[in-house]
């Protein structure tokens, strides 16, 4: 680039210019530009899969760009790995904390940059430095506490101090509030304001619009790998942001007729479920699904959807409340019993739950019904019947290559999903939980799976669809429930609502509040 053309980026702490990052099959960042002024809090908002984290991972050197340039304080630099980023005074707090559970706060903070006396770890020096940082930024931590004994909010503080200890002037926080309680979130905001007042620059990734309004100075909105808006926070409002985030015509339209809704088949009453760490993930949720309808649950990932699905299908313990299926309280039934009663499940994680990848297809086709008389005569598997059954399914669902002896691992993602869908449908369920059915699939496979779900509904099956793709929710659902922090924000139908309204509910606004505002 010749000198005459050189731009003056000196007032920006971070400039990312025309960043392109391609993953197999996806253009994750499509010529993304980002301008972050020194000393501001800058939000990057967007739905899941918009490319926010990918962009930040490039700034932190965890992955490398295909093309594009990065300027820090006006000077162009190359960031190939986290060490380059640390040298450029960039720090990142990951969505999943990178902490060593068994070590103390001090040890975690200084790991890799330990103060020493000769070979010995200078714990007192480390403690002193951390206390200074704590005091300066109002980040109070107990230096000798063990990480695993601390609540998530404090662990996050440790992560922030870790970054500050390394001298970061630019802090990236990837969805920092996703794991926090409202009180902890408020405390985090205090800390961020303190950091800002000390001149730090903060990049804040989120999808919660009220948070954006609460603490940021400016916003970059992303959708499908592209920037769709750059605004000052004072000049905008949640409604506009939501439109930029999700407001577009639904691209995929699926042909579907009027739903012939029958009797209620599943009812969830005041359900409470914990996530793995024992925090409450589903908080008093109630919903109902009838035969012949598709109920879609919209929401950003991590708002309790996974736990809800696992509670309904019997893979996770229910703390409180009831799951009622065909009029029977099945809250404590085993997964097997639920299956036998006619519940199907297309799981969100194909490789973890849906398939045994080391099994050939014909074994995968009978998972969950392997002891059904159709496939099993007493203790013995009826291999010829199983293979015949598998051959039929492979043909009917167009699994490629159509070889039932192949291992699950040898199929593409789309065909793996076809195997699971084929299996679950072939068992003839009356009710089906369908979780993230098209994640990572190509258009052809998506279309096929959508059609299959609709035809299930038309045969009178009740479907509970969980998806992070708003398009999918809109094109398939007869009713839409929006889930946020383990609760339902409101129920709408695709005809009477807009993506904007749903987007606001996904960001934590209740339907009744939105509607009263309007009135």
């Amino acid at each position, binding site marked *: 680039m010749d000198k005459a053309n050189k731009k003056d980026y000196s007032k920006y702490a971070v400039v990312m210019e025309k960043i392109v990052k391609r993953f197999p099959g996806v253009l994750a960042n499509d010529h993304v530009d980002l301008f972050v002024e020194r000393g501001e809090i800058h939000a990057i908002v967007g739905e899941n899969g918009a490319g926010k984290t990918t962009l930040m991972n490039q700034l932190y050197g965890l992955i490398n760009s295909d093309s594009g340039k990065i300027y820090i304080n006006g000077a162009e630099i190359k960031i190939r790995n986290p060490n380059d980023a640390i040298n450029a005074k960039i720090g990142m707090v990951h969505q999943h904390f990178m902490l060593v559970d068994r070590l103390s706060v001090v040890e975690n903070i200084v790991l890799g940059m330990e103060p020493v006396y000769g070979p010995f770890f200078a714990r007192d020096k480390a403690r002193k430095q951390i206390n200074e940082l704590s005091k300066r930024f109002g980040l109070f931590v107990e230096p000798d506490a063990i990480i695993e004994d601390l609540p998530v909010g404090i662990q996050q503080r440790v992560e922030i101090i870790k970054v500050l200890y390394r001298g970061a002037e630019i802090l990236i926080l990837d969805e920092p509030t996703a794991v926090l309680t409202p009180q902890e979130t408020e405390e985090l905001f205090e800390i961020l304001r303190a950091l800002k007042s000390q001149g730090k620059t903060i990049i804040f990734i989120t999808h919660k619009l009220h948070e954006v309004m609460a603490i940021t100075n400016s916003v970059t909105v992303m959708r499908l790998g592209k920037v769709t808006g750059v605004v000052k926070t004072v000049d905008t409002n949640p409604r506009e942001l939501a439109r930029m985030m999700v407001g577009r015509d639904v691209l995929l339209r699926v042909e579907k007729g009027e739903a012939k809704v029958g009797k209620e088949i599943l009812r969830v009453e005041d359900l409470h479920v914990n996530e793995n760490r024992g925090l409450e993930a589903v908080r008093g949720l109630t919903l109902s699904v009838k035969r012949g309808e598709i109920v879609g649950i919209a929401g950003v990932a991590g708002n309790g959807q996974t736990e809800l699905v696992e509670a309904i*299908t019997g*893979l996770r313990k229910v703390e409180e409340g009831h799951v009622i299926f065909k009029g029977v309280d099945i809250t404590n039934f*085993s*997964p*097997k*019993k639920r*299956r*036998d009663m006619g519940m199907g*499940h297309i*799981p969100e994680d194909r490789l*973890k*739950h*849906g*398939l*045994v*990848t*080391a*099994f050939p297809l014909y*074994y995968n086709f009978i*998972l*969950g019904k*392997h*002891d059904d008389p159709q496939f*099993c005569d007493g*203790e*013995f*598997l009826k*291999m010829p019947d199983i293979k015949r059954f598998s051959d039929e399914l492979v043909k009917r669902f167009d699994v*490629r*290559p159509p070889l039932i002896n*192949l291992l699950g*691992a*040898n*199929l*593409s993602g*789309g*065909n793996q999903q076809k195997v699971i869908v084929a299996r679950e449908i072939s068992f003839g369920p009356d009710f089906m939980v369908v979780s993230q059915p098209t994640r990572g699939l190509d258009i052809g496979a998506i279309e096929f799976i959508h059609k299959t779900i609709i035809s299930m509904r038309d045969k009178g099956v009740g479907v509970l669809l969980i998806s992070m793709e708003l398009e999918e929710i809109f094109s398939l659902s007869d009713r839409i429930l929006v889930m946020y922090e383990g609760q339902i924000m409101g129920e709408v139908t695709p005809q009477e609502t807009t993506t904007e309204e749903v987007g606001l509910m996904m960001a934590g606004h209740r339907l009744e509040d939105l509607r009263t505002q309007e009135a």
Partner: protein
Amino acid sequence: MANGLKKFYMNDKIVVPVFAVITSLFIAAIVMIMIGKNPIVAYGALLFGAFGTKGALINNLMKATPLILTGLSVGLGFRAGLFNIGANGQLIIGALLSTYIGTKMIAYPFYLSIPIMLITGMVGGALWAAIAGWLKVARGAHEVITTIMLNYVAVFIANYVVNGPFQAPGGVPKSPEIAYSARFPNLITSGATWLSAGIFVALTAVVVVYILIEKTKMGYEVKAVGFNPYAAEYGGISIGRNTVMAMAISGALAGLAGTMQVMGLYYRYLGALGGSMGFDGITIALIGQNDPIGIAFAAFLISSIRAGSNQMQIAGVSKNIVIIIQGIIIFLVATNRLVKTFMFWKRKEVEEA
């Protein structure tokens, strides 16, 4: 299908163990050259010792009998995602119990006492292994540690009883002899060696385990738990029940191996009866890639090497080299990534059509 044939040969189930066996024999040959011995002579002696005479072959098959069973024991464990390093202890308990029952069989006809012996041996091994299975399921204790500890406890129990309450008079510590009706008939006798009917039990076990793994509901569930416990649970399969079950069957096979030594070879319990068969079972399962048929061949390979090693020792190469060979084989199978890198061999995933 040329493609299918190619896939068969490039299959890592075949390539890795074959490579490991050949490499270990090659390394052992280099060691022999280094100490001034001719590996061709030594290996010739080994072959002669394993197959050269009728007696040699009988001895070889007698050694293979329990090895097939301990190989199946470890291999079945692997299929369920369990590392049963305790075949030795299960073998001891199985042999001890069946010996005890065998001494009480004097009044019974063979068609009752032989099945009773077999069942006792299996139950003994199964119960011993089930302790480890239960500790894993209920208490989260890793089966490698618990089976190692159970091995030692079994050794001490056996030593205790054959040095006291269950001791035959005179000489080395040993139990009394079992009843004649509880012994396997000899199929062939050649000098001081004989081939007992135990080989049929072992071969039957190969078939039974094959059917169990490939054709039954239980085999399906055990494999699903071994490969992917999450998917198994999703499919309504109980992880706990199948883990204990797999451990028990694995132990039953090891217990049966001990019973073979009692019914077909020693006719009593002897301290040395198990030898290194538990550890050999690991080698055999790894070479046989946990496939029952493969295990049968691998057991025969190891029994041949072991049987031939005496002849090799006479030819001037210590039979300990056989243990080195086994160690190298296991090491190479453990580092199969190394083997694959070494062979510049990349497998292409089946592309979407």
